[in-house]
């Protein structure tokens, strides 16, 4: 009598055991497999590193080490967060580099995606390669969750 019901909990367990089998973030992150939607990860993997696709690190130009930062944007360690979050663009009047919670309105996102209306060229300046859709998805997610200093 009870045996006919046993397969139900067995199947439930089998189904729920698959719950942990989510798609890995690294499959989205592409050439920066360790990239996560955190500021420290974006700083390390995007701002400060050249990735395996050949995309240049941002701090090649956006640094005050031995030069003036391009576009008035300095992305060196310990300065980058305060340079982008809720900071007005030096090039485009009225634009804010990162608007927490609103990736579409964030000028940095627009520059990286080459949206219409940006001043100057799409970043990185010597691209392609540019950031991949997956890399941008992760950056957008960090902005969307409020651009925390994490």
């Amino acid at each position, binding site marked *: 009598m009870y045996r006919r019901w046993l397969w139900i909990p067995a199947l439930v367990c089998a*189904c729920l055991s698959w*719950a942990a*089998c*989510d*798609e890995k973030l690294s499959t989205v992150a592409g050439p920066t497999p360790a990239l996560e939607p955190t500021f420290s990860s974006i700083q390390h993997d995007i701002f400060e590193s050249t990735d395996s696709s050949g995309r240049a690190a941002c701090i090649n130009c956006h640094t005050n080490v031995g030069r003036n930062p391009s576009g008035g944007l300095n992305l060196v360690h310990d300065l980058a967060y305060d340079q982008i979050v809720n900071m007005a663009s030096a090039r485009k009047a009225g634009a804010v580099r990162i608007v927490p919670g609103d990736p*579409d309105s964030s000028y940095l996102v627009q520059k990286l995606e080459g949206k219409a209306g940006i001043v100057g060229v799409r970043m990185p300046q010597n691209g392609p390669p540019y950031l991949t859709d997956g890399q941008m*998805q*992760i950056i957008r997610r960090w902005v969307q969750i409020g651009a925390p200093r994490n």
Partner: protein
Amino acid sequence: MKRLLTLVLGTVLFASSAALAQTPSDDPAALKLAEPDFALIGLPTNLRLPKFGSSFRVTHRFTCPLNEDNAASDLFGIDCGAQIGLEFRFGILPNTQIGIHRTSNKTIELFSEYSVLRQSAGRVLDVSAWFSIEGTNNFQDSYSPAIGAIVSRTIGDVAAIYVHPIYVNNTSDQPAELVDDNSSFMVGVGARIRILPTVYITGEVAPRTGYKGAAAGSTQDAVTHASFAIEKRAGGHLFQLNFSNSFGTTMAQIARGGPVGNDWYLGFNISRKFF
């Protein structure tokens, strides 16, 4: 939505008392006039499959919306591509069926359905348990298990009403780090009404909480899956012409909803029973 609820309510209220007094046959191989197929449009029904019986179904959803400007020149979407699903189900034990459904976006869903309660003189409802798991990229990437129930009431040979409380885990096909909620609970509501001896009209909606999909090109939630259809039974076949605001035919796809708010798409289902 309001029209569908009115339709369902109207059917319940105006069904004759003689029809209400009838109870469905207990033979799973017998034709159930009010429940002729194993699915409404995307959501499952309580129709039992005889032991060692089987059924095959093709689902087809054209991907150009009916309400675009040049819809007529695309023959209402028929000139466009489509999301196609192939499904096979098999009765492994009495009251128990398993099946596989693959859609052309490389999603494979494995499912099982167990008939727990049968509508009879003493029971007002049919209840089945539903378990499924689907995986994207040919069952290699993102897995979405679903567990729930199919609750229905047939009204004589005239109509059947369905409620599907279903929990879908890991609904998003994106990594959990990129979405707020990654699971959904939906309550599908549907009905099938026999308007002529072999002709039916069918409708279903699947409102949900938790992860609600993402509308194309925006950060907005996707729209709630809704669909209606007209269908013709011919022997063991059921031919269905449907109109949907999403392409979903698996549980996670239905929970993700439709891509754009006001777009509706033409589609069809064809099913065949082998018993």
